[in-house]
């Protein structure tokens, strides 16, 4: 019997997993490009070492959220030994679900902090 895919089963995502999915939402990337983009986007607050990065890639691949891609966006510029990864449909669903979860959390936090600010004012 095939196991039914439920995005909620994989939530919440760790920040590294979330950042990798966000990174791949724009298209295929190889490992080092993922790392660089995340480091730049987070002002190096999240600087993934090789172990953390490929450990996370293995986990996301195993969960079926990302997969290896044969398509190479800039093949002429790249080292052909690099492996590219892309988001799967399930990965995109999970990313959306996680984004929605985070959004609701942010909204909740804001709704509770506004009266406090008002009181201070």
């Amino acid at each position, binding site marked *: 019997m095939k196991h039914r895919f439920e995005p909620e089963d994989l939530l919440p995502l760790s920040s590294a997993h979330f950042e990798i999915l966000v990174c791949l939402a724009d298209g295929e990337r*190889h490992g*080092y490009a993922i790392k660089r983009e995340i480091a730049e986007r987070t002002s190096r607050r999240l600087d993934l*070492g*090789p*172990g*953390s990065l490929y450990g996370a890639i*293995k986990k996301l691949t195993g969960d079926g959220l990302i997969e290896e891609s044969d398509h190479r966006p800039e093949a002429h510029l790249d*080292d052909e030994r*690099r492996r590219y990864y892309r988001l799967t449909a399930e990965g995109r669903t999970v990313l959306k679900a996680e984004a929605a979860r985070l959004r609701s959390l942010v909204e909740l936090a804001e709704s509770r902090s506004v009266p406090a600010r008002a009181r201070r004012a």
Partner: protein
Amino acid sequence: MIAQWFYGRLLALYPTEFRREYAAEMQRQFRDDWVEARRRGLLGAAAFWPHTIADLALAAFQLHYEIAAQDLRSAEANLRRQPVSTASLIILLSLTIAGNTALSIFAAGLIFRKLPFESTGRLVFFAKPRAAGAIEWQMLPRDIAEKFRQTSQTLDALAFQSDFRETLGDFQAHGWFVTPSALTNLGIAPALGRLLRADDDDAAVIGPRLWQSRYQRRPSAIGSVIQLFGRNYRIVGVLEDSPVFPFDADIWASRSAQNVSAGVFGRIKPGKTLHDVQEDWTALRQRSGGPWPAQAEWLRNAGQDSLLKFTLWCGIAAFALVLLLACADLACLQFGYVLRRQREVAIRVALGAPRGRIVRFLMTESLVIAVVAGALSVPVTAFIVTQMHARLDWWGMTKLAGWPAVRFDGSALLVTVAIALASAAAAGFMPAWRMARESPWHILAEHRNGQALRFGRLRLTLLGAQTAAAILAVALALGFSAESKRRLDSPVIQALSQSWRANLRLPNEKSVQLVEGIVQRLESAGQPAIVIGAPPFLDEPPAMEYDHRGGASIRYQFVNTRFFEIAGFRWKAGRAWQEEEGKLTHPMVGVVNQALAGKFPVGSILRLINPNGNPAPVRIVGIVEQPLLDQYRPAPTPLVFLPYQRATVDFMNVIAPFRGDALRAKQSLANAIRQGDPPLRGYSIQDYGARIADNWSGWLVLVTMLWIAGAFALALAATGMAAFLIQTFLEHRQPVALRCALGAWVRNVWVWVSRQARVAMLTGAAAALALWGAVLLLPAAMVPAFGIPAVLAGAAGIAVVAGLWGAMSWFVSRRAASQSLAESIRG
């Protein structure tokens, strides 16, 4: 370059599969990161490494954890599918681990753990020379002991002791007369006052019990006087804690010149051995021409059964064997597990899973069983240790060095963990490795053809080993029990089990008349008594040279003629000596036992050679067939009995058997001793039967352990047989059904499956019998008298295991046949 090489080595910490998949990319990323870090300068390069190492350690741990969790889930699900066999294996294994841990705790406490006074070197004492049995203090004449103290090249701080019991008001005190160095040797410091000094004549140090009971812990106890045997002793010191083994007592009083014999102990000099001390003593004996035999022994062995270590090692070996059998059972279970997973394993290997990963995956199940069994064994071990500690007290174990330190503690937990993990490795590795090294294409081809990978030879080897161990364990338990009973069945033990033994310290003069007077007073009170130099089953008779073809050694025993009236003595020739003959000197009269019957016929002369070299001729008046007088010697040794009137010894024993009122008999014996003139230097009265039982405690512990090990071995053999039968019928389900369809009955199936196991079981039986024969290599005191009982024990072992196999194989064959199609049609 070096950094990249180093990082490449560190990648070995990751699981192999992960490494194969991502190592190249990780190294590329590392190279880029390292270049960038160096570009940031020295600080950037310095900060790079901690970050990289932390990242590597965390990621490696997480990946290994995920794999372990996955394997554990798989193992748990599989074990749940066969709850009965899993539960029985866990129970058996936990009991076996508990037995092994408990024995290790006892061995560590009694043999290996240092006593407090051993921290600055070991103490040696002089024991009675005995082949086996309790190692007891040998009391030596004071002048000889003093001479040894002055001349010894091997012992320092030689101390003398003799123990006593005295009633002080309503307090029953146990004490020691000691020389000052005794207390300093034991590293004792007083809580109040001081210890004994060399110039102290009538001084005493008291322990905490007496200080509390008599002085309510008041400091004024120092300087007060206590009376011991009519003599005043001034208390000069008080101890906060009682000294440890073997001097746990209430009073330590200074020895006076009146104490004419002493136990001797001292600290061994650096670089000297026990053998050196023995030679030192022997040299002194030869110089002094004295007959005082003594054996140098470690002080921690005082009071111990000399076979205790042997017994403990036997127990450890037996339980280790049982643990191996339990591992064999676990391995059998693993074979089944591996067989069920063979397709999955083959696919994993075909897809590139490394062999190490496969082994780890397949071993997880045995690890789970061993860890659960280890956890369950912890309370069982604690219970066993507590119970044994409490129940072995009556065997006199409390007197042993290290006994108080025997307990279940943190180190015992470590032993449990180690044994459990070793069991898992021993049981799980072989099946897992067997499967992992198989070609996946071969396994898949076999599987497609409906055939399972065969573990026939391995399984048969395990069955053979289990059979051998079970037969051997049963034979050992039966053989040693029968031998124990045979040795305790001596008519002398039967006759003397209800008797009082009075150990008399004789004065220098008129000692024979004194003993004669005691015996006569007892006779007139209707209580015939035996006089004997070395009490049978407790002390070994001394040896003396005799003039026979260049000289040989013979044991001699001083007795009165009452001794020969005990049932079990039979005259082969001649008779006992008459009363008047006993007093003759040139020659003396004597009786030899059956071991000397050929050499000394009645009327012949046996020439004993005194320690000073003078001959002492003995005219043989009788040859007696003597029953066992020492349970640690399987057969009587050559012995000559001499009239006690000819003895010139400091000690003599009067044994007074009784029927009915024991206390009255003891009182009567004490009265007969007290009326003696001149008075004795001292005496003690003991329950003779209880002392014999104490002396046999090592054997009793050994026999108990052998029975426990035998029960375990049988249970494990039964489990192993069940596993063998079930797997064999599973593998041959179709041929068995076909045979039944063609008219085979249960007995045919039974014969067929028995034939499958025939070689393994016969080999196992042969191995067991060979090992049973190796019991001959045990120390002389332990070897069972080989003969009909040994043959019967071996045969009984085979019969029990064969019966077990017969019953189990018949039951499983009947089930297998009744489940087959043909049998159900026939039914």
